[in-house]
């Protein structure tokens, strides 16, 4: 199995699980969430480490990286991003409605927009991978 495609699969799975857990914590037990700035820094650090890992894989295994980024994968990624866009727009409309009617704090609504943006493309890519449509 292509190591680059496998790494991407686990990255999306990790994103999906991580953001889902965070969402559940916010909804069910907000007190479990530590300092927001800590989570923010942690997210940035994980993103940088992920980027470094992918760069290293692409550098040391260029043939596999090319095959794992072929047009089928790019097509799946485009569809995942499009789906993420519409999902985020839908959530935005809901959040805007709740905020304008004073049923939700604008700050919380802002954070919620990050979930469809982060989760939906990853859900799509995980499913695409399992169906043999992404590397």
């Amino acid at each position: 199995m292509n190591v680059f495609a496998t790494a991407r699969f686990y990255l999306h799975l990790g994103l999906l699980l991580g953001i889902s857990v965070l969402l559940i914590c916010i909804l069910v037990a907000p007190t479990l969430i530590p300092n927001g700035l800590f989570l923010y820094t942690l997210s940035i650090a994980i993103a940088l480490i992920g980027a470094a890992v992918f760069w290293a894989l692409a550098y040391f295994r260029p043939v596999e990286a090319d095959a794992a980024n072929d047009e089928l994968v790019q097509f799946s990624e485009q569809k995942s991003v499009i789906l993420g866009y519409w999902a985020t727009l839908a959530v935005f409309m809901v959040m805007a409605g709740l905020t304008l009617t004073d049923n939700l704090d604008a700050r919380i609504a802002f954070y919620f927009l990050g979930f469809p943006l982060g989760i939906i493309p990853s859900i799509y890519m995980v499913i695409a991978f399992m169906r043999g449509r992404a590397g």
Partner: protein
Amino acid sequence: MKLGNNLRKYRKERGLTQAGLAELTKVSRKTINTVENGVFVPSTVLALSIAKVVGTSVEELFYLDS
């Protein structure tokens, strides 16, 4: 309208596996598999590349299946 293809036939005539063809065209085996099964429509560049490797023309390889 769908895109039909004779890729499997030409690939086997050349004695190539999906993985072998994928390696020669610098894509993944899954891409070749999805093209063969009509799930994925390849770009012009990939279609030309596949046709070149299996030694035929794009017109012989792909056709419109109405």
